[in-house]
């Protein structure tokens, strides 16, 4: 069964500094991977996704992620964070149920704190 590991429960970054959030997955075939962001009490907003092709994917709000098959990783990066980036970040992998409308398996999330 597929699984997602986000090793960092909390990360604190100074405003304007660079950011990298780690995500490792376990999946038998070629995975399709997502990063979602969630503000407190809010829904999940898609930042970016990887299905195939170019391993460096660009997303919204200046985020990017790199798929590395050899490391089973899909780390999220941003060159300069803003105070509004403070939120919970979830990495997710698509299940492979064979039925088509596959649910997502999420990691436990990383809580991002921005210091002024």
């Amino acid at each position, binding site marked *: 069964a597929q699984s997602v590991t986000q090793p960092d429960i909390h990360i604190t970054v100074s405003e304007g500094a660079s950011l990298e959030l780690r995500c490792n997955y376990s999946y038998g075939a070629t995975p399709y991977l997502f990063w979602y962001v969630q503000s407190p009490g809010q829904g999940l907003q898609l930042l970016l996704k990887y299905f195939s092709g170019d391993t460096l994917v660009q997303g919204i709000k200046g985020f990017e992620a790199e798929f590395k098959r050899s490391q089973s990783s899909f780390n999220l990066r941003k060159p300069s964070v803003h105070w509004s980036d403070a939120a919970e970040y979830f990495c997710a992998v*698509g299940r492979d149920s064979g039925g*088509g409308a*596959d649910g997502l398996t999420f990691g436990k999330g990383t809580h991002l704190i921005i210091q002024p």
Partner: protein
Amino acid sequence: AAGVIQSPRHLIKEKRETATLKCYPIPRHDTVYWYQQGPGQDPQFLISFYEKMQSDKGSIPDRFSAQQFSDYHSELNMSSLELGDSALYFCASSSYPPTRDTQYFGPGTRLTVL
């Protein structure tokens, strides 16, 4: 752009009562997914529907059932509610083909069981 609509946004129930949550997908989306997110937890996939047929099934309790209707909206029915059912319930939708397509999430329904 139109988004996923969930109703109600907040719901308070007593133990052993029933609850029905509704989800209206983005127009022209024919696939619906349900997730449960407990306090401080990651979202857990419950069930999905494609073209009104159940497609994938996750960790949905037997007390819960769901269906998708001819207009593609979906309802999650929850019976014999327990305190542990208190959570944020998300619906997401995607378009054909559903496989490997992006799921767009609604704002969620916050269910509190007293």
